């Protein structure tokens, strides 16, 4: 490399500078995320507890998500069963459909589908709401009135999301299994009792625990990402849009990574 390349303003110097600045920004962002999560764990234990707000957010996140979750879960159950049948029919093993559906839905699809839908609906909602509160100075207004906005807005939403996503996951799993049952019943004339007997026969206690743990982690991730993006949004209405969008994209990305990691851990435990 020519010595002149180190002069300010030359292309390689600029490139290095841009790369360093991006790296700097990434580390600053990581530190900021760390501080945000640490603040949550610091504040969640101490009063005042915003029970009213937590219950309100549980209703917003849980009850208001039910129509979308019901429809999606039911259709996924039907479609998955329908698409799996030809593969099993090739081996004359359609009797194994309930077991297959059960393992797929309880272990993976129930938690994952619920989390992805919630990331879209709940994550964007939290990101946009807090972002809008930030740019219209509502968060500052809370702070100057000696109310801890972090506790009122962030802790309540993250807790509500962490509580409600597992509940929604159980519900989605049940609705998807019902969808699967309808399809199996229509084609194989299996009774409801036999279907659910085979469903529960195929899964283990570890599957249910793993599914629950996963959904708790997904719920925490969705709430935390939405709150972080919204709480730290800036640049006016453009920032609100970005916060909402980024809440969904980041939460979905993290959910897939977490799914991958948890699956590896559970498989390792199962192998022991």
């Amino acid at each position, binding site marked *: 490399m020519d010595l002149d390349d180190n002069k300010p303003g030359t292309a390689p110097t600029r490139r290095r500078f841009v790369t360093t600045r991006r790296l700097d920004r990434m580390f600053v962002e990581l530190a900021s995320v760390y501080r945000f999560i640490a603040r949550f764990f610091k504040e969640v234990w101490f009063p*005042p507890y915003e029970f009213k707000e937590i219950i309100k957010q549980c209703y917003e996140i849980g009850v208001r998500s039910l129509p979308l979750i019901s429809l999606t879960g039911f259709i996924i159950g039907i479609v998955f069963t329908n698409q799996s049948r030809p593969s099993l029919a090739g081996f004359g093993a359609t009797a194994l459909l309930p077991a297959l559906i059960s393992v797929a839905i309880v272990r993976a699809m129930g938690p994952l589908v619920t989390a992805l839908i919630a990331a879209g609906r709940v994550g964007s909602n939290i990101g946009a*709401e807090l972002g*809008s*509160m930030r740019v*219209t*100075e*509502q968060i*500052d*207004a809370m*702070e*100057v*009135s*000696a*109310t801890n906005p972090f506790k009122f807005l962030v802790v309540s939403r993250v807790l509500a999301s962490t509580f409600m996503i597992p509940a929604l996951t159980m519900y989605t799993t049940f609705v998807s299994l019902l969808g699967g049952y309808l399809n199996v019943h229509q084609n194989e004339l299996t009774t409801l009792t036999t279907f659910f007997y085979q469903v529960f026969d195929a899964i283990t206690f570890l599957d249910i625990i793993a599914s629950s743990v996963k959904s708790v982690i997904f719920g925490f991730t969705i709430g935390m990402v939405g709150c972080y993006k919204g709480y730290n949004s800036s640049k006016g209405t453009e920032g609100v849009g970005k916060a909402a969008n980024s809440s969904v994209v980041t939460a979905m990305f993290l959910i897939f990574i977490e799914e991958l990691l948890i699956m590896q851990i559970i498989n390792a435990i199962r192998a022991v």
Partner: protein
Amino acid sequence: MEAKEINPNIDRTEKVISIRGLKKAFDDFEVLKGVDLDLYKGENLVVLGRSGTGKSVLIKIISGLLQADEGQVNVLGREVGNLTPKELDALRLKIGFSFQNSALYDSMTVRENLEFPLVRHAKEMTEADRDRIIRFVLEAVGLSQAINQMPSELSGGQRKRIGIARTLILKPEIMLYDEPTAGLDPITSIEINKLINEVQRRFNTSSIIITHDLTCARAVGDRVVMLLEGQFQRQGKFEDVFDTKDERVKAFYNYNFID
């Protein structure tokens, strides 16, 4: 609108806010370059200046929303920069902050907006007492009928009034108004000016009013200071501040009235 008669109850011996050598910069841009300021008990102090000169930054530092880079900010005898979060919260209960865009909580009704600080800071209060205080402050700002409305159903002027009512509900000793007449029509602006004077008289508050509206400054200010290039250049009565050969001050005066 006529110039305000100076409040005879101002206590010039008691400073509720005292600022010395305040500096604040954002990245390389130095907004406040060593500001000195005193606010006396019972006084309405208007801070004039162009947009972006650091007027709002000043009151955000006073309320602890921003931290000063250098200097002392003493509010009601407490040094804001040295307070623990708990002490800062205790001090904030004595400061009312009226935001430029009112900052009403969108998802709550007017009643819930007003109830919000009471529920948290006057826990021993009965529901009947809370209701009585809410109705009292709503009556004080002339909007008793809006109690069950959502902020989105209110006009700009009404939102400002409710914002002021929300700050009054904890009986603050100091009021900080950030651009109280920004975005309002002239008649509503005059109503807000009257309300600011009414709040000073009725609640015995000391106030800092941040504005670039000269009509507002003349109507509500017992004293006016002008922030130019990060420092207070002129201060005194409204007429005295603009009785100068400083072209920057004269330009501010002339352009304001052309607008």
